[in-house]
């Protein structure tokens, strides 16, 4: 398998606004949204990033497509380092920017809210063809053909019934199909999908999930699927990474994570997922307190405050590194050893 994307020690700090008279850099506090995150994604081995609100999963996705500039760490795409080229573009110093357009074309994103992510003043045709226009690909005629093909590929046919309409005339499911069409029209190699189905109704969601899987398979794109829903991840990806307060606490093959979670946080998440089956009795998730804020967190394990398994030494050691327990099924915990 070919490595498509890899990130190494990726970190993103957001400084909190300073108080009056105390704005010097040394006293500023930081939100550690993404803290030393490392993973690789190979060809056809898509990964889901799962976690609760505020765990840094969306920020990780935005760093990968270059919508945020990393505070530290490196991003590699198809073997080449792209860390600063993605964000700085033309203004970057000391970096090779000859193929920056090509790299950007190959990495696309789908956003969570189809009501927010489409420009209400643009027609569907303008929205879907914009990536082609921006990249100066093809003649006007070629573009028309490509838009038609793409709309039909995302299940909006006949395309002519949609091209001249505006986003507000479409349902949530149809809008998300437009967002997918816009992301795949350039035949990207990698797609970051940020909760593309969380705003949709159950009956529509299944169709969008199926479409996304089939379409990415057809164009040979690998993806990072960001979701808070482990059940959705189960249907979408080969591997799952569980994030907690900016750190990946467990990563591994989907079925292994679901059948045999190692980290106490993953266990609690799985216990909490409701199951529509009257015969399944759910126990109370084994977790203490509630999620804290990742503002200048202490060095020790991020999960310490909520961990049911914690021992005194956890508070003395640094945050545990990921350790491989079973052929690529890794967890970051001292106690489960």
């Amino acid at each position: 398998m070919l490595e498509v994307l890899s990130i190494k020690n990726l970190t993103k700090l957001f400084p909190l606004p300073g108080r009056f008279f105390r704005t010097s850099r040394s006293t500023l506090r930081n939100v550690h949204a993404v803290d030393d995150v490392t993973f690789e994604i190979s060809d056809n081995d898509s990964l889901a990033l799962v976690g609760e609100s505020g765990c840094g999963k969306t920020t990780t996705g935005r760093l990968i497509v270059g919508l945020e500039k990393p505070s530290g760490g490196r991003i590699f795409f198809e073997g080449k380092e792209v860390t600063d080229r993605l964000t700085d573009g033309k203004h970057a110093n000391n970096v090779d920017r000859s193929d920056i357009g090509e790299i950007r074309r190959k990495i696309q994103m789908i956003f969570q809210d189809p009501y927010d992510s489409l420009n209400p003043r643009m027609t569907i045709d303008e929205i879907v063809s914009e990536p082609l226009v921006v990249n100066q690909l093809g003649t006007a005629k070629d573009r028309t053909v490509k838009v038609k093909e793409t709309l039909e590929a995302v299940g909006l046919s006949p395309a002519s019934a949609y091209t001249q309409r505006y986003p507000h005339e479409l349902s949530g499911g149809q809008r998300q199909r437009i967002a997918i069409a816009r992301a795949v029209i350039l035949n990207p190699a990698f797609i970051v999908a940020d909760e593309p189905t969380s705003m949709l109704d159950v009956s529509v969601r299944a169709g969008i999930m199926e479409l996304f899987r089939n379409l990415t398979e057809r164009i040979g794109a690998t993806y990072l699927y960001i979701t808070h829903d482990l059940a959705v991840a189960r249907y979408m990806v080969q591997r799952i990474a569980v994030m907690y307060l900016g750190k990946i606490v467990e990563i591994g093959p989907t079925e292994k994570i679901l059948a045999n979670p190692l980290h106490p946080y993953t266990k609690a998440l799985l216990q909490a997922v409701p199951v529509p089956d009257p015969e399944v009795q759910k126990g109370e998730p084994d977790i203490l307190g509630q999620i804290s804020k990742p503002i200048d967190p202490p060095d020790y394990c991020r999960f310490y405050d909520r961990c049911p398994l914690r021992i005194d030494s956890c508070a003395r050691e640094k945050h545990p590194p990921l350790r491989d327990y079973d052929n690529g099924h890794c967890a970051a915990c001292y106690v489960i050893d």
Partner: protein
Amino acid sequence: MNHPVLEVRDLKMHYTIKGGSVKAVDGVTFSLAKGEALGVVGESGCGKTSLAMAILRLLTENASFVSGSIFFSKDGDKIDLVRLGEEEMRRYRWKEISMIFQAAMNSLNPVYRVGDQIAEAMRTHFPGISKEEISDRISYLFRLVGLDPARVNRYPHEYSGGMKQRAIIAMALICNPSVVIADEPTTALDVIVQGRILKRLRNIQEESKTSIIYISHDIAAIAQVCDRIAIMYAGKIVELAGTAAILKRPAHHYTSALMAAFPSITGQKKKLVAIEGEPPDLVNPPVGCRFASRCGAAEKICFESEPECAEIGEEHLAACHFPLEVEIHA
């Protein structure tokens, strides 16, 4: 079943818009027993929130009751809320029937202390009540919902999302109402917090014999806390039965299609099946069954005549000409 506290009969509540009326609640009938938890499940636009607002008589300017009744019973008295004047309705709203609103994080006023906001309802409904009584009641409720009573004098921004939701629940319970309507009470919350809050609500309902109507799009989440579930589609209840029966032996094709579209974390990884098409336009709803155009089992009669919501099994109602065979699964 013991005496119902709430009986909704053939309720129709429509919104007048340019070019017609939206039949958001269009002939809904159900009853709610004392101490019972009933789930109302449906997708966006099916009329579930309108139903809740209709019961509380919190209607927008363009909404009106077309027909039907909402009977509320207490201590042997039975009154029809639809026919009450606004002043009389105020005596029942919150005191007898209260609500936990959707997006609770935004339903607290940011410039008042949480405790003061909760006390307001009590002062209105029990004029002359002493400060001590109010603060005792709030402390009691804070403990009941799992909040530290020391937090009553804090402002909403000092609460986390889950804590705000708990405060909102305390607010709904302040007058010890007979019925609480919980509209998507945990939708905006993370799964661990959601589980805890639903469990807490279930305990409160069982201990204080409060009746709760849960309104949700997430059948899996509320199945844990509901005795019975009503499935709503395009302004109507299409199926109503015990929670286990709805999940295991759905009779209506819409219910079974919903279950087939639901990704599950346990069991076989079944293929998910989306429901083709879209819900009907509620300004001009179709003549026959409202689900017919999306239903795999629809025949001629389904497009011509509307099915009655009939008993197809023990305490199992479904509005379908060709219900799935309930007894085969049983």
